């Protein structure tokens, strides 16, 4: 849930999403969900000549699994807080795994 939480803070910011098919879309992040699907508003394709079919598209929905990169503004990210959040996430995952292991043994 760390990335979901992280992208929630990015809602309303300008981002550039690069997809696995090399299409890069710049726009305002409108919403994000638990699968990291993105909705972008007022988009502009970065390399316009190659994708003329996108000329008239204003908003789009991007499935999370096709995203390769999301480019953000560094000023919108609090790296110290992100480190803390990542550490907490790691700790809680460790705890969950430790709890889950005896349960697995029981059902085996």
């Amino acid at each position, binding site marked *: *849930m*760390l990335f979901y*939480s*992280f992208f*929630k*803070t990015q*809602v*309303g910011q300008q981002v550039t999403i690069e997809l696995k098919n090399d299409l890069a879309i710049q726009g305002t992040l*409108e*919403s*994000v*969900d*638990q*699968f990291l*699907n993105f*909705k972008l508003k007022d988009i502009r394709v970065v390399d316009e000549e190659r994708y003329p079919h996108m000329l008239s598209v204003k908003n789009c929905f991007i499935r999370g699994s096709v995203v390769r990169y999301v480019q953000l503004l560094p000023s919108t990210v*609090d790296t*110290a*807080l*992100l480190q*803390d*959040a990542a*550490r*907490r*996430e790691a*700790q*809680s995952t460790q705890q*969950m*795994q430790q709890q*889950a*292991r005896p*349960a*697995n043994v029981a*059902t085996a």
Partner: protein
Amino acid sequence: MSGGSFFGAGYSNELDSKLETLALEDNLGESLEDAQDTFNDETFDAGDSQVGKQDFDFFQNTAMHRARIEGPRRVLTVAELESRMVRHQPQQQQQQQQQQQQRAPARALRASAEVVAQRRELRLQRQAELSRYDNMMSRHDKEYIVRIQVSQLLTDDPAADDFYCHMYQLSRGAAMFSPPQAPAAAAAAAAPAAAAAAVASAGQGSGSTQSSMARMQQQVQRIVNEARRRPKAVHVAAEGALGKISVTSARNPKQVIQVQQRGHAGSVSQAVGAQSPSAHDLGGIFAGMGGDARNPSTERRKTLRSIEKVYGAVLKLEQLIREQVRLPAQSDHPSVQAWISAYAAGKDAVWAELEAGEPISSTYPHPLVRFLSFSKGKRIFPRVMHHMSTDQVLAVTATIIANFESLDVCRFGSFSYAAGSAVVAARQGEETDLFMQAVMPTALSFLSETPLRMVNWLFALFMERNNAAWVARTRPALALLTVILRRTAVLKQQVDSSGNNGGGGYAVDRQDVYQANELYGHLFDSIRGNLAAMFPPHSSSSSSGGGGGAGSAMEDVYVWQFLASVAMGASVEQQHLLVAEVREKVLEKVQLAKGGHVAADVAAGITANVNLFLHALGLDASQVAT
């Protein structure tokens, strides 16, 4: 069937009303009773025999079923819809025509009756086609789906899962999304409540939405407790089945990489060779050290591991502090007791991990020094010190002072070390800055508030354990010495101004003053002759073009400050000695400032710096004859 629920601005009002009704339901993705399962009623009410026929008109059947259920509100067929629209159209058309005639009589030619009628027909047809299959799902169906989606989002511990977002909003003043009343309430209903809150506050923020929000939060809380009582199994294995089915949800998504956990993650026995890891610390502080002399990378890992433990402990402490606001007021309440003991235990854990209690340790470098040789160790330092008692801060300061020489910023911080490569110089600069920013303030503020005796003790410790001349070439050491000297001077003044005892509440003894002077003399003797080496190397760009020189010209501020504080306590002969050594540097700087090769503000800066020193001696830059 499980999909995402969107968190975002500008979602429709329907979500809010849906979630409101959600608050009144209790089933979540469990199987419903037959009587309650209305999902496929349109088909199944028709009866099996009818459905089996090839020409079963699903649409017709649905319409009839809905008419039956919802009764009086008639579903209009296309023909009825058309006729109704035709009735409304002439009125609209008349208005339009009037407006058009007022604007442009020419337009009336085009708006002839047949064309208008044709367009109307087309419009109606298109509308009819598009809405032919509307309203397939009933309201109940849609709520059912939303309930399932929301249940996927619910987590056991919303506060932890949404940590980043929540803290970020708090730290940025929660500009965009105003969080609901208390952090507790906000944390308790993270995703669905946050979504609805954003929607509500972005949309209206009216009174009714607030109350529905509150109700939904309560409902979500109940649901979470329910879920916690009956934990969803990660794997489901039926009796006699040959395999396990894994249940994916938000908390344990499908793993792309399967990681095998073997007992203890990252075992230390797989140490790679003994190369100096220059990417992570300055010059391989662990190379060839005591402790586990066999393997510097082992030592490195051990230190990194203990840094992570400290981080974990500090995070727990900070979480406890956040929870403190929610504790009841009376101090004998059991939860308060529990909190107090948890907090104390956390602090002890941090202190034990830090190993700063003993200024002198058997391993070289000192564990605390090793700790601070990583930038993340430096970063966590102020946060740790925030929770420590004064005694502990004293112990840490003493440890740092006693081992000052072995600190990475000192050992690898001098300019000759960095002269070779620009990369190393850059890293050095970073680490030193970080050290000055993160570690020094704690020690320095402690120093500025202690009595003379303590200052003397620490000063003596410094002189005893470190080679002053050698360590004086680095910025942190000079900063430390500056503060010590200044504090000593201030305290001595207290003695002078108010007779025997200091007026400020600290009894300043004659003996302490005497000792301070002794130490000063000792320091002076040590650094004498090396003063010129304290200055940053003269970069060639400073003499050409204003902009490039600004940075390097300002860099020696701390040196001038140190010299000023030395001059403050100097006797006449000592002052002479000082001036003799530093004379060339002073001349150089003054010439630079007056020469006109640098920008005006840079020149002013340089002059100010030099004046720091000269004023302490009672001189001024303008008196210098060039």
